[in-house]
């Protein structure tokens, strides 16, 4: 199980701990791993609670949860600060989420393998990065799927380098093609 977060990092760390406790408590009570939808619902309910009372402020972060198991297949859920939770085929959070969502919608995810998607994801991160306004960034990639037997792992160095190279090359191509268009 994998959380990816965007927003206030302190809030995100606190929420990760909540998710861990929920998953652990479920496993302890019921004897099997928590289904991702249920974990997402529980985290969302927790986040929503902080929107009800004036004594606290809402969480300043969005939360993406991903998992893979052989019975349910790949699953992707997102929780936002309002406490809404949905399942997704693809989603984006953070400053450039609108631009990223547009790029994601162009992808034919169902026909692509995990390795191909890694490259596309890296490319999208590079595309939406604003050279002028944003600071330099470091790309972090991790995956969970059949390729990792359901465990969340950092993407191996060779796959990551292939993805970064693909991303940077695609950007240059687009720059070139911009010049050709009058």
């Amino acid at each position: 199980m994998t959380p990816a977060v965007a927003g206030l990092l302190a809030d995100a760390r606190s929420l990760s701990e909540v998710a861990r406790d929920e998953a652990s408590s479920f496993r302890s009570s019921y004897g099997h791993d928590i289904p991702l939808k249920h974990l997402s619902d529980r985290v969302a309910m927790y986040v929503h609670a902080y929107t009800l009372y004036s004594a606290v402020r809402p969480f300043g972060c969005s939360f993406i949860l991903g998992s893979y198991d052989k019975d349910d297949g790949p699953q992707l859920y997102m929780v936002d600060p309002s406490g809404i939770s949905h399942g997704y085929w693809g989603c984006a959070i953070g400053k450039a989420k609108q631009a990223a969502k547009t790029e994601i919608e162009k992808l034919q995810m169902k026909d692509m393998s995990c390795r191909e998607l890694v490259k596309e994801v890296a490319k999208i991160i590079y595309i939406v990065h604003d050279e002028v306004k944003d600071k330099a960034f470091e790309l972090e990639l991790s995956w969970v799927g059949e390729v990792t037997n359901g465990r969340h792992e950092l993407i191996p160095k060779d796959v990551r380098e292939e993805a970064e190279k693909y991303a940077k090359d695609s950007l240059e191509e687009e720059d070139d093609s911009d010049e050709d268009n009058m």
Partner: protein
Amino acid sequence: NHESQYKMAAATMMPLFGQQMSSQSELVPDWTSQEVSTGTTIMAVEYDGGVVIGADSRTTTGAYIANRVTDKLTPIHDRIFCCRSGSAADTQAIADVVTYQLGFHSIELDEPPLVETAANLFRASCYRYREELTAGILVAGWDRRKGGQVYCVPIGGMLVRQPVSVGGSGSSYIYGFMDSNYKPNMTKDQCLELTAAAVALAMERDGSSGGVVRLASISEDGVERRVILGNQLPKCSTH
């Protein structure tokens, strides 16, 4: 204080919890002080696509048969049953608690519960309150992930999955029968025959087991229940 209680109990030969010894006056019949027990023979068998469960139907208070047509096969959820042995009150109470917990859990998840989950809920109660309870339970059912499963939760609150399991006071008499006659990959009908024969044999020998044989088979398609009456029981011996 706790330690001195133990010492007192040992000195007077009286158990701390559960039944009191019949050291009462002759004015009161001894069965009034004896707990209602599902003496019992229970059995559960896995097959490819489901499970078969079986039980006798005798409930005793001492030597008196309080109920000769008991139903010891208790539904916990649509495709999950439990077979109860030990104290009738304890097992009914635990089954009610687990039925509630599992129903709630299933609604939260918005999908049918796993047999493993039900078994873990039984184990949680039976282990936590092991000093106060006398309950030997077989949890059996069908779910989408692992198909037919049988889980054994004996007195003390252990949990183990087994392809075939027997329980209750009558089970002692049929371990040999089960070990020699159970083979993996049996069909549903073979399992039903095996269970009926085993429970009937136990009922023949165990004083706390008797009445009718109740059977149920659980699969993806649902639950089928049947009863084998006294005169229809498989006759295994000539005496």
